[in-house]
């Protein structure tokens, strides 16, 4: 973008300014420090401080009973987590949850974006309407699905039951097999608009001529998708999938409000597990330890995605 803005000079304060005697370079430095310092301080206080503190807590025995004087216990919290088999359970549930939520919202987002395409009349309206689920606060999403999934008077059971697809009295949220799908449903519903707008925007960056040329050469829609659309969107796809993964690792409100991690721990992701350890069992050391494990997992995943990015054939 080339822009030549008209600059209105601020009133000259040179004569009275404390910076009057400094050279341009020095004034530059002062400016930088004035910008940087407050931002750094806030970051330290509000972001890095709590994170580092969290990591440190994970190595201490910090529970309801020992809260006045937490003691260092190095890896004891971690070992307890692994030995009790709980950690593996949390990781499994998390991976299944994240995998399915991200996968389904990817397919939905991409599918709808393709259906809308670049040329459908009314596409802006459609896009706008599909975005609506995103505007609903998470707690409301949780409640609405709670109501819709009620076995006795919920609309989902009623409809599916009337159509004969399943027993109208199916219990979702207390059923060990169906609780996770229920929670996945609610999460996908709220999140797929994000994927959708990304892909809609992405599809618009694909040069029309390339597509036309391919059609003239006889390429069908599938071939166009594989050889033109996907490569062009590769970067957007990777970033959004990664962001969605991170977002869903963090997911708390919907699961907590719908199932509280049950039944039988089938919907207890790492996020809920950390919360329960910290604010139900009041074992902050263990809670923080789960958090560190999670961080480790995400760092690995991010590194993997960065590697995928770098292999971009279009770059």
């Amino acid at each position, binding site marked *: 973008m080339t822009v030549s803005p008209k600059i209105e000079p601020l009133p000259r304060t040179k004569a009275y300014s404390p910076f009057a005697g400094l050279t341009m370079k020095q004034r530059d430095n002062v400016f930088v420090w004035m910008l940087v310092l407050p931002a750094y301080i806030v970051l330290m206080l509000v972001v890095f401080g709590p994170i580092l503190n*969290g990591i440190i807590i994970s190595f201490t025995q910090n529970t309801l009973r020992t809260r006045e004087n937490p003691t260092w216990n190095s890896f004891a919290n971690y070992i307890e987590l692994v030995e009790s088999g709980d950690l593996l359970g949390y990781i499994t549930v998390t991976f299944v949850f994240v995998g399915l939520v991200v996968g389904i919202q990817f397919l939905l987002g991409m599918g709808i974006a393709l259906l809308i395409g670049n040329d459908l009349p009314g596409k802006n309206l459609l896009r706008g309407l599909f975005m609506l689920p995103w505007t609903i606060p998470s707690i409301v*999403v949780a409640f609405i699905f709670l109501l819709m999934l009620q076995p006795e008077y919920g609309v989902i059971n009623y409809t599916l039951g009337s159509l004969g697809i399943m027993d109208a009295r199916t219990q979702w949220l207390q059923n060990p097999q169906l609780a996770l799908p229920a929670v996945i449903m609610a999460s996908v519903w709220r999140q797929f608009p994000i994927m959708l707008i990304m892909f809609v925007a992405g599809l618009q*960056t694909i040069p029309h001529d390339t597509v036309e040329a391919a059609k003239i050469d006889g390429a069908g829609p599938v071939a166009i998708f594989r050889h033109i659309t996907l490569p062009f969107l590769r970067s957007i796809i990777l970033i959004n999938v990664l962001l969605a993964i991170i977002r869903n690792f963090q997911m708390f409100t919907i699961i907590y409000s719908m199932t509280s991690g049950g039944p039988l721990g089938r919907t207890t992701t790492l996020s809920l597990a950390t919360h329960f350890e910290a604010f139900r069992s009041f074992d902050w050391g263990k809670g923080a330890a789960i958090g560190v494990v999670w961080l480790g997992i995400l760092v690995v995943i991010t590194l993997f995605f960065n590697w995928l990015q770098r292999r971009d054939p279009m770059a």
Partner: protein
Amino acid sequence: MMVITRRRQQHIFQLTLRYLLLLFLLTIALFPIYWIVVGSFRDNSEITALPLRFTPAALNFDNYVRVIENSNFLTYYANSVFVSATTIILSIVISVLAAYSFSRYRFAGHNLAMNGILSAQMFPLVAILISLFSFFSSVKLVNNLFGLVLAHLTIALPFSIWFLKAFFDGIPRDLEEAAYIDGAGRLETLIQVILPLTRPGIIAVGVYTFLMSWDDFLFSLILTTRDEVRTLPVGIAVSFLGEFEYDWAGMMTVSVISSLPILILFIFLNRYMVDGLTQGAIKG
């Protein structure tokens, strides 16, 4: 009579198919929203009665009156507005400053800070909450709306800084050089030259922060335990889920009212939001 060519026929067929599919998906996507609105016009015995009716018996606003008059709903609403607004302002100011300096200057600890910011987004919020909780309890920041703002900044800043930095990176330095040569100071340059160009990004960051702050349940759950300082999400959960019964009607009504601000924001800022987010994503 116009002859409709085969090609045209195929085109119309394909278009119809697409519309039908989209309509089907749209119905599924929007039904829950319809259901909340319908629910807000019903009372509890109608909601739990069988057989289910898909349209409300009457358009009655009793629930709305009841909710606004009887519960602490207005308090929760006001608290949410205060916390979100304050968070947005602080978040934009701090992240613009930080992102600009990260983008333009290389100084000690630059890379570490950038990586730190990226990792901060990945660190479990719940674990951050543990630290915040113990810190807040010792300085009596619990049950304090400013404390909540601080907590929300913890979540908002990393993403905002990371996102805006990408935006600033996309603006060529020549512009600043040109302004510099014209005799403008750094601050002037920033405010008058650079900022207008990053407007979509700033709006996107503002909207993202608003959505996050308005939506926050976890932090509010732990850091505010008194009714007077509760925000909407926790207030809703607490008011309408009792031991003896669920007040579905009340919940639906409150849900409609609390979704309205975002909806309105969305209708007006739709284009900016989408542009901002997508530009950022494409650049990033």
